[in-house]
């Protein structure tokens, strides 16, 4: 019995001899045998590409799924950090989870119960600014006693804080009317002030007071604006003047013993808090420092962000997996629909591996082409989101994401197309030719 299974493998040389010596087509055979298989491989890929292009409508859904997955992948990788910063800022308005307050504690050791004043030196502040993960810091000084505004209606007492130009940004404050003073006004030691909205309401009965004058401790100050926004509850009845002006003109003002630190993201809070202690040990080793962090709020924000991030990544993975399943399903359907074609190709001389290369090539081109489309869409999306966030995209990250997308698409195409291609390549010629 001479079934396929019983045949012994014959050396190729013998087959070659059979062809060259007997069958009598030496030119063709010699030419064919002298060829490396390179041309053939690329020609088979060309045939695969042609099939994908000509049957693109059949694969439209798959192409769309993989393109969108790739686009999302590129978007998340390229502008994810910018989005995180913005999300961080927006979520922070609800709780200030990335802001921490650093206080110097008075020295009670040798003076009984009367603490000796302590303050942040300028080199210490510079070192705090340079801590990795710190976005900005703000130094403040509080007047120990109440400040007074003498008005026609009588005297109005309130808390007064000397702040620098970064104070507003560090605390995520916004002006409900007018504006804030900045570093320039602080540098020029100008007599300007900002009032908390509750204090403005108490004194003027309105918050629309920008440009008006207010006498504070006997000197007139121009009102720059009114402080609003979330998280100002404890500051709503405060008045704020430039730190330098306060140091020059306000009696009873404390030294700068309090600094607010704003971190880049919530992931930086822990390391920054630890680094602050080290900086203080280095620059002011004899001073005790207390770092107040809203750990509970931070945990909640991080949990929200984690869920969001997980959701986004799962969406991308799901899209890519669906795309992969689409390729698998599409290729299985194609193999079934083209069974006679496979039989015909084998009948005219295709080897198993030729069919494998062709179908695997189709799957790969499908995936790779979809990824290319996704890259174009991704670039557009990155530009759009960057425009919205007002932050230029990182070109390095974009290139990295493109490279990863291409690698992923190759893996996806080959992985999803392997089984259908193998099935196609192993088809028996007769049953394929007789397939209806």
């Amino acid at each position, binding site marked *: 019995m*001479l*079934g396929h299974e019983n045949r012994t493998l014959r050396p190729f040389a013998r087959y070659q001899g059979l062809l060259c010596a007997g069958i009598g*087509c030496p030119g*063709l055979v010699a030419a064919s045998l002298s060829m490396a298989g390179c041309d053939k491989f690329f020609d088979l890929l060309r*045939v695969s590409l042609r099939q994908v292009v000509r049957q693109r409508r059949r694969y439209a859904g798959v192409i769309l799924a993989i393109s969108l997955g790739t686009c999302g992948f590129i978007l998340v990788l390229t502008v994810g950090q910018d989005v995180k910063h913005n999300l961080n800022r927006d979520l922070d308005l609800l709780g200030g989870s990335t802001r921490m307050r650093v206080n110097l504690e008075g020295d009670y050791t040798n003076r009984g119960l009367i603490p000796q004043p302590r303050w942040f030196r300028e080199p210490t502040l510079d070192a705090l600014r340079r801590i990795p993960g710190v976005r900005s810091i703000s130094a403040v000084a509080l007047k120990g006693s109440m400040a007074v505004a003498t008005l026609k209606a009588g005297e109005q007492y309130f808390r007064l804080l000397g702040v620098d130009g970064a104070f507003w940004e560090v605390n995520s404050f916004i002006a409900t009317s007018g504006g804030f003073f900045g570093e320039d006004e602080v540098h020029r030691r100008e007599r300007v002030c900002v009032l908390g909205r509750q204090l403005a309401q108490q004194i003027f009965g309105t918050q629309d007071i920008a440009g008006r004058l207010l006498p504070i401790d006997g000197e007139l100050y121009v009102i720059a604006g009114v402080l609003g926004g979330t998280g100002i509850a404890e500051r709503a009845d405060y008045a704020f003047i430039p730190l330098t002006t306060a140091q020059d003109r306000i009696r009873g003002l404390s030294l700068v013993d309090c600094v607010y630190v704003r971190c880049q993201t919530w992931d930086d809070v822990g390391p920054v808090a630890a680094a602050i202690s080290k900086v203080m040990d280095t620059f002011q080793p004899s001073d005790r420092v207390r770092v107040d962090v809203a750990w509970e709020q931070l945990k909640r924000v991080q949990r929200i962000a984690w869920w969001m991030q997980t959701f986004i990544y799962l969406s991308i993975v799901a899209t890519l997996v669906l795309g992969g399943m689409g390729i698998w399903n599409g290729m299985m359907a194609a193999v079934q629909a083209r069974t006679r*074609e496979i039989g015909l190709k084998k009948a*005219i001389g295709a080897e198993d591996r030729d069919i494998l290369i062709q179908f695997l090539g189709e799957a790969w081109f499908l995936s790779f082409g979809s990824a290319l489309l996704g890259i174009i869409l991704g670039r557009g999306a990155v530009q759009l989101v960057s425009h919205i966030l007002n932050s230029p995209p990182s070109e390095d990250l974009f290139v990295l994401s493109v490279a990863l997308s291409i690698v992923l698409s190759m893996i996806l195409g080959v992985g999803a197309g392997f089984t259908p291609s193998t099935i196609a390549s192993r088809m028996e010629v007769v049953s394929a030719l007789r397939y209806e």
Partner: protein
Amino acid sequence: MNDTGAARSPDEALVRVAGLTKEYRTGEAFVPVLRGVDLSVFHGEMVAIMGASGSGKSTLLFILGLFLAPTAGTYTVLGEDVLKLDRTTQAKIRRRFVGFVFQSCNLIENSTVYENLELPLIYADVKRRDRHAMIEDALARVNLSHRMHHPSNLLSGGEQQRVAVARALVNSPRLILADEPTGQLDRKHGQIVMDYFRHFVADRTTAMIIVTHDPEVASYCSKVYRLDDGAIVS
């Protein structure tokens, strides 16, 4: 045994089968399809195999084309036992030695005439620069040069069959196997196709085996074998 090539020694045969038997398994039973077929085909011969449906004609053709393995018997090409070759080597023989023409659905969909003819050349590792001339030559033989870049599915039935013939001839096979090659054609186009075959085989380096019901097709052949219930009866 119905080898009518008695004038020549069987050892000179291009193709020779002896004692060829094929059984299909149906459940527990084995159904014999071919029963000890002996056959020799020489260069320059056109051989017809006729018989009723189910007589085993197509099975014999598939075995000759190395698509099917027989249950028993020998099959030699120029004295070499090709049944002992592995699957890959058989595919190589198929693409360089054998040309096939089927009754219908012969062409690859979504492809032009040129692309259909190029495929066997790609599989045979023929250099790209040589292909165009070979395709041109094959199409010229069937008077379809003007259709070279035409989508194959837009051709008429007769033209499609002629393209299939051209594809079978494109890599100059030594053996052409045809299964009802004119079955889908009208009389006129059938005659045209058979004339191509006769002309092609006339150079005496090629042989052709045609499976057919049609006595008119068989009349083109130098030998006619009749199969009945898996055995050659005349």
